[in-house]
């Protein structure tokens, strides 16, 4: 054969040893996906695998961002493209630490990036009657977001609910609990759980915050969204003239006297209160708090308490949660796992960018090297369980097909059903 032109279309195989590094990203939440995205851009020749415990990708975006904030969830379009066109492998249904040991992973990949986030709710560190009804905000948001787990809250929170904390997560809880079912149009809220947790809108939502209004951590935009809801009245007793900042200004202008109309929700913000104990009385949950500036303790008699005071790694006995021994020169941490539960998705993008810069610097300086086999080194171990991106798309298509009227999808919360759909065995 003379003058064949096929070589113009087929790139020559890379000589052995010159391929890019192999990379494992553990966790497909925003930080993990951003790391994969920036790394793929910097190292187009690298082989990147994103491991995820669930058959579904995107972690916090799918299960933590409130179901009625689809605009924020739209960020997944970028990541979809990463897996469909960007040559990045999705290895779902694989829990590192359980299905594959960390040591085996670290031995198989040139770079390991841990992006497992902080899935647990930080608990209120006060004496607590075990019979008291206390629910973590993260667990509540996951339940309303169709998270496939059995241990999530399912029973009614009641008509008087107290929320501890005043960050954006607390505002998500307040909004989701006080919004009419019809107002969830376009969302992918789990209607079944919404109906179980909140058969009717609570009449009273009390918010207890340690800080004063000036120190409130929530965004003014989130507070505005709550204030604008139909049927919601705002109260802010004790808000002083000395309180400054957007949260204080907003609350001052929108506070109204309580009105005795059925179907309305009264949200009252209490600042400068430090929780002291959670007890029970006559089957109800009682939170006692102390004023930071002294005075008599304040008592709230409620049906349930929702804590929105931050996140942790999760249960200590959880093998899938990175311990201090998950470390080496070629192992990096990113996002909330590294920085703590602060900052938006955009801030985690910036952090991912910085981590990728240091990975590339380390590689260029010879502090880390290429040569480990990558996914081929673990494939035998995982072959029977990996849910790839195409498999996931079958699950997603089923979720979109079965959406109720006015909803963008109906999440499948049964893991076996997800896996059956993934393998095409439905």
């Amino acid at each position, binding site marked *: 054969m003379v003058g064949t032109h096929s070589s113009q279309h087929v790139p020559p195989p890379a000589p052995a040893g010159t391929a890019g590094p192999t990379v494992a990203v553990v966790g497909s939440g925003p930080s993990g996906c951003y790391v994969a995205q920036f790394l793929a851009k910097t190292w187009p020749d690298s082989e990147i695998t994103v491991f995820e415990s669930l058959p579904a990708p995107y972690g916090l975006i799918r299960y933590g961002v409130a179901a009625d904030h689809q605009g924020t969830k739209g960020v997944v379009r970028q990541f979809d493209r990463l897996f469909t066109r960007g040559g990045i492998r999705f290895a779902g249904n694989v829990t590192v630490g359980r299905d594959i040991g960390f040591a085996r992973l670290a031995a198989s990949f040139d770079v390991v990036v841990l992006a497992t986030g902080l899935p647990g709710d930080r608990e209120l560190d006060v004496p607590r009657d075990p019979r008291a009804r206390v629910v973590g905000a993260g667990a509540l948001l996951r339940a309303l977001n169709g998270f496939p787990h059995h241990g999530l809250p399912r029973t009614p929170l009641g008509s008087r609910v107290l929320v501890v904390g005043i960050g954006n997560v607390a505002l998500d809880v307040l909004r989701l609990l006080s919004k009419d079912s019809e107002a969830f149009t376009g969302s992918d809220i789990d209607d079944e759980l919404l109906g179980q947790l909140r058969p009717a809108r609570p009449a009273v939502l009390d918010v207890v915050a340690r800080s004063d209004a000036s120190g409130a951590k929530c965004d003014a935009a989130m507070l*505005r969204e709550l204030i604008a809801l139909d049927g919601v009245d705002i109260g802010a007793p004790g808000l002083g003239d000395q309180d400054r900042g957007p949260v204080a200004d907003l609350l001052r202008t929108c506070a109204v006297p309580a009105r005795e109309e059925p179907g309305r929700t009264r949200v009252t913000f209490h600042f400068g209160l430090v929780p002291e104990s959670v007890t029970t009385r006559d089957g109800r949950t009682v939170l006692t708090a102390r004023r930071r500036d002294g005075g008599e303790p304040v008592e709230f008699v409620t049906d349930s308490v929702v804590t929105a005071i931050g996140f942790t790694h999760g249960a200590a006995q959880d093998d899938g949660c990175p311990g201090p021994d998950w470390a080496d020169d070629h192992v990096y941490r990113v996002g909330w796992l590294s920085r703590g539960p602060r900052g938006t998705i955009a801030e985690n993008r910036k952090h991912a960018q910085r981590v990728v810069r240091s990975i590339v610097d380390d590689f260029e300086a010879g502090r880390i090297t290429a040569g480990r086999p990558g996914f081929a080194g673990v494939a035998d171990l995982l072959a029977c369980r990996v849910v790839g991106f195409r498999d996931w798309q079958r699950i997603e298509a089923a979720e979109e097909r079965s959406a109720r009227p006015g909803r963008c999808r109906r999440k499948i919360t049964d893991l076996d059903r997800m896996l059956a759909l993934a393998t095409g065995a439905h």
Partner: protein
Amino acid sequence: MNELIVLFGTESGNAELVADDISAALQEKGTAVRVADMEDYAVDDLGEADMVVLVVSTYGEGDLPDTAAPFHDALVEAKPDLSGVRFAAFGLGDSTYETYNLGVATLRATFTALGATQIGETGYHDADSGLNPSDVAVAWVSTVLAVATPS
């Protein structure tokens, strides 16, 4: 038209994706396009392109994204003469916020004040609409360019 530059300012990466897709759609039609991050772009170079397409989101209380703010500051500071520059502007925002698409409004006002000529209407994507921002942006840019290059 010779070269067109798509400049994006982003906070979560969505405006970058939109900029890439605008560029791909225009290249398919034979237009030479370059995509650049406002973060990496010197305002003195603005005169070089035949046309500039600005793609920018809005963050916080109506602010420009972190990657666009220094670019905007440099414009305000250096006050380059943009009277030879034609530009189109596309904003990504969320209409549930009072500050909907203020970012692109800020940038557009500054460009215009420095003498630049806006081509076509400002394009908007509303994250609350559920529409794919790339679809909206690609449809928008083709109408804008029809204005820019009347046949």
